[in-house]
């Protein structure tokens, strides 16, 4: 392992500015979890295959495990911690996941919810088939998929009304 100089970066996360010094190889996922204590974003495969680390960068859902923290400088990052209102009122997707019991162990849930928020915003939640296709990047080892689809469907209707 070669040692390279740590670099100073500024990150804008959930509306707050953070300054940190990291090795260039540090991913956005590790910066959130290990450097900033924002452990809501989960590390599943760490290889871009499971979707557990889904966050929004400039409003687009992306994988934090394949994004360098340094790349995110100058962009607005939203993690699961930034989804609810300041007064604790849950986002419609969070509430729908609770109501539909859309999880078992819960490990994939933050990624599922961040992905679902974007899926609805993109206009890709028009039918159950479309929800399944556009949520395919979020794996759930417990197999809670039918309830996840129900939650996304419910939230999409609520957001539209």
């Amino acid at each position: 392992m070669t040692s390279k100089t740590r670099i100073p970066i500024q990150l804008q996360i959930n509306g707050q500015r953070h300054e940190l010094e990291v090795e260039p190889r540090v991913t956005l996922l590790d910066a959130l979890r290990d450097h900033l204590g924002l452990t809501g974003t989960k590390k599943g495969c760490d290889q871009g295959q499971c979707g557990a680390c889904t966050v929004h960068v400039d409003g687009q859902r992306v994988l934090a495990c394949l994004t360098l923290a340094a790349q995110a400088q100058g962009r607005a990052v939203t993690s699961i911690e930034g989804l609810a209102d300041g007064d604790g009122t849950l986002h419609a997707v969070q509430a729908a996941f609770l109501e539909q019991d859309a999880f078992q162990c819960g490990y994939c849930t933050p990624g599922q919810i961040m992905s679902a928020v974007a899926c609805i915003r993109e206009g890709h939640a028009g039918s159950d088939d479309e929800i399944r296709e556009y949520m395919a990047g979020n794996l759930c080892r417990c197999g809670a998929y039918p309830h996840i689809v129900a939650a996304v469907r419910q939230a999409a209707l609520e957001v539209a009304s």
Partner: protein
Amino acid sequence: MRDFSYLRANTVDAARQAAALPGAMLLAGGTTLIDLAKCGVTEPETVVDISHLNGLDRITVDDRGVTIGALARMSSVADHAEIKSRFPAVSEALWQAASAQLRNMATIGGNLMQRTRCPYFRDPANFPACNKRTPGSGCTAIGGVTRGHAVLGTSEACIATYPGDLATALVAFDAVVHLGDRQVAVDDFFLLPGTTPEREHAIEPGEMITAISIPGSAAAGRSTYLKVRDRQSYEFAAASAAVGIEFETDGRTIRDLRVALGGVATKPWRARAVEEALKGKLLEADIVKQASLLAIEGAVDHGANHYKIELAPRIVARAILKMGETA
């Protein structure tokens, strides 16, 4: 992942200069580079971040066709209204690839540079022999588990499948890769493994993909991308076909036909023999099925991937007939 230096490029020229340095690699969406760095397949000394360059993500459509900036994201190209209407196979190849998150990250230029998913290539710790990774070290796939490996364009040195969907559609419609001032046909941009499988693209150190352009055509306007895989979504192709068709004014005789295969070859595979066999013919199921067998001419299997030799022509025929239904 070995550490590296990080450099953010502010201009295309600065990016090219930095990329020409030994050990430097360009970083756009990161979905290939960071992934392979974590696998230990790539070990860049310097990562040159081009994802903040301005103006390279434009999609420009005119009478001649479309030009897509290298930094346009897969998702925005897939959803672009004129790409959908004038190049449906391109849009379909894109939205059927990867996942929504990966499509939001991955750029069009980076997509062309993606590497094979050969499991031996991706696992240097367990499989040190790989001619693509370490020239001359041998090929673990030959004699190994070959279910996903190529049956077309292989060599004794490498049988790794080219995994992409987009380039399969691009090669069908004669797209061109822009490397700054130099332009290369997509078909020539991807190289056969031969004796040098480590060299996959006709791009030189210090060069950078700046755009791709696709000429408009009647066949591109009436096109589809048919992808068959082990699961419904978020999977690489077991076999796929990009097909475009243009009929004579009678609506039944084939004037122009484009056919390319994905998931079965070492590079995006244009099936010109199928095209030539069907031009001037009536679109009839038996004729199409017979001609589609030409898609797999010269195929060589390595055991477990034999099914691709049967699957690929069926997919070609199905895609052609599907395009004919709407005549």
